[in-house]
């Protein structure tokens, strides 16, 4: 039905980049950084141009049939590839953990979802755990602190990998973030549906970020990063926010979130 996923002649895996709707609309640099990193890790990166959204908004709102429709479209689009990589813990977790839950046992889509799930990864965990890759010759004179986004952390065990990668960036000083594993209050539609609560949560997160005393805030999920960056900026903070992929790809000298190039 669909072509068997296979590497090219050099043994480099065909990897589909699932760029995510937030990166697509709000920060393309993250997409290009991801491509550069995957390329550097010996992958043949392709960007299926028909990709749109993994369906998380529908899933989290309880609209299972809407989520299922988007899942089917996404599975059909991505299953020809050997791997699927997303620069987002929440989107990768949606495909990896939640897609199979959308289909009942008798549904042939279940096998397809399960097969795709096994080949879908968050970007930084893919680089470390699957490709054994490390940045080389990347440097940045700055201090940074890292926020652990909840989906990546708790659903996909992404915690040590970003730190290992960032530790290999020359002259980048990593500072610990108090309560780095505590939610930032983004939660998808939560941050607008329950905005006052979200604000209180991110307010506490921002106080911890400022107390860390680092130049930069880094993370692996753009939604969380935008939430924290937006609150930091509203409060007049000078902390600059990047997706970790950008730094790893040597793009840390470019404009941070919200900075005009």
């Amino acid at each position: 039905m669909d072509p068997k996923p296979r590497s090219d002649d050099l043994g480099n895996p065909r990897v589909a980049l699932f760029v995510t709707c937030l990166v697509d609309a709000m920060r393309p640099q993250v997409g290009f950084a991801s491509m550069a990193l995957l390329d550097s890790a010996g992958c043949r990166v392709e960007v299926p141009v028909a990709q749109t959204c993994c369906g998380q908004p529908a899933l989290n709102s309880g609209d299972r049939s809407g989520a299922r429709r988007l899942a089917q479209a996404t599975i059909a689009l991505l299953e020809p590839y050997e791997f699927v990589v997303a620069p987002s813990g929440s989107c990768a977790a949606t495909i990896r953990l939640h897609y199979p839950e959308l289909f009942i046992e008798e549904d042939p889509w279940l096998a397809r979802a399960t097969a795709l799930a096994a080949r879908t990864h968050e970007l930084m965990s893919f680089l470390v755990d699957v490709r054994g890759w490390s940045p080389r010759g990347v440097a940045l004179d700055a201090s940074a602190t890292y926020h652990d986004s909840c989906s990546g952390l708790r659903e996909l065990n992404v915690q040590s990998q970003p730190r290992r990668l960032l530790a290999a960036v020359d002259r980048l000083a990593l500072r610990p973030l108090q309560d780095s594993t505590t939610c930032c209050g983004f939660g998808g539609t939560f941050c607008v549906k329950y905005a006052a609560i979200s604000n209180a949560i991110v307010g506490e997160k921002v106080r911890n970020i400022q107390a860390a005393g680092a130049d930069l805030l880094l993370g692996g999920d753009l939604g969380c990063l935008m939430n924290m960056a937006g609150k930091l900026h509203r409060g007049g903070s000078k902390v600059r926010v990047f997706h970790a992929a950008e730094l790893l790809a040597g793009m840390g000298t470019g404009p941070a979130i919200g900075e005009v190039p």
Partner: protein
Amino acid sequence: MSAVKKPLGFNARVQAALADPTLKIAIDRTIGNARTKRAAAMAQWPQFPAARELGRDIKDHVIAHLDHYLVKFERNARRSGAAVHWACSGAEACEIVVDICRKAGARSVTRSKSMLGEEIGLPHALQEAGIERVETDLAEHIIQLAGDPPSHIVWPAMHKTREQVAELFHRHHHTPLPLDTVENMVASARRELRSRFLAADVGISGANFLIADSGAVCTVTNEGNAELTTTLPRVHIVTAGIEKLVPSTAHAMAMLRLLVRSATGAEFTQYTTFHCGPKRSGDLDGPAEFHIVLVDGGRTRMLAEGLADMLRCIRCGACMNHCVVYRQIGGHAYGSTYPGPLGSVLTPLLQGLPQSADLPRACTLNGQCQEVCPVAIPLPTLLRGWRDRAWSTGIESVTARWALGLWGFVALRPALYRLASAWAVRVMSLFARDGWIARMPLAGGWTHYRDLPQPPKRTFMAQYRRRRARS
């Protein structure tokens, strides 16, 4: 709880909570302390993951054979001389309790802490029956004097400052001791309540565990009030949810190791007591009558409707202590006997989903609750289940359905999606200044509190296609 009027909706209660700096101080102090202590206790227990799996399995085993264990418990409890009553609903349970009190000619009843008692509205039922109710757990005593509902399942009076407590005791204690220190306040409560313990005709307690093979009821407390409540009066009544069963005392010990550390970070509470039947021949103290009221109150529905995992809950409170939402809004905002993640799962069942649909939604699904739960309840999954039910039964708002429907429609059509996203980033940029959007129609929820970073001139996909076209 049912006696307390809740005229405000969830959002209004949240607003009130967020606007209360005293509440925030109280929450941070109590909950922060609980988290720190729990973390310290778990750091000294490397076997916790294995113990947690065992706790989960013990509870799952009991749930899978719940009828068997209920019957076994009833048989053994009866054998010890206890009277066992069954109640389908909370109201029925209250009727049974009031009936026992009436038959005993009770004018005054002492109570030790029982969340189930709150859940079924027992305080209100006793009041309606003209029976004086004396709360003896210090926190419950405080909130009884204040007329407040509980705000946490382990520290129900956490929302009160010492000044507020001193003021309550000054007003209500018959001969209050000086109330300048917390020690003196506790001493005043001890003195005030001592005579009430002695005067009570009936003592009502909850149960942390029901021991099937002995018919004993286990209570886990710190103050000693549970024992005074259940030993001094002539009648002892236990109200317990049917899910509280464990097979034996040894199994209870495994659960106790998990419960106490998860709740307070201690290893064992001061008083772990197993109550089994009334006074025996030769006993110098103890109740002449021992009644156990087994309450369903929706638990069989949980079993039938995909919420069986929630029946594992041992009410430790760790989930709410680690919930970023609870930590900001406190317990009263939930408008239910049970706050926090466990409350957000239970309340739609107890109150009905239309009345409480905000609770499963007001959650970031971050999963820390599940991570700390000592019986590994998949709380985010259960909350998602309520969201699914809200959607499929049409509770979700029209605006939300419309917006999501539109998003889904566009997302299934890549060409249309590309057009729409290209258009959206251009429109959004109209509201931007120096890289940020401070205000934008339809984005009020975001921009009221935060700035929104300006989107790029062209989306990733547009840029990618252009680069590809060039090469």
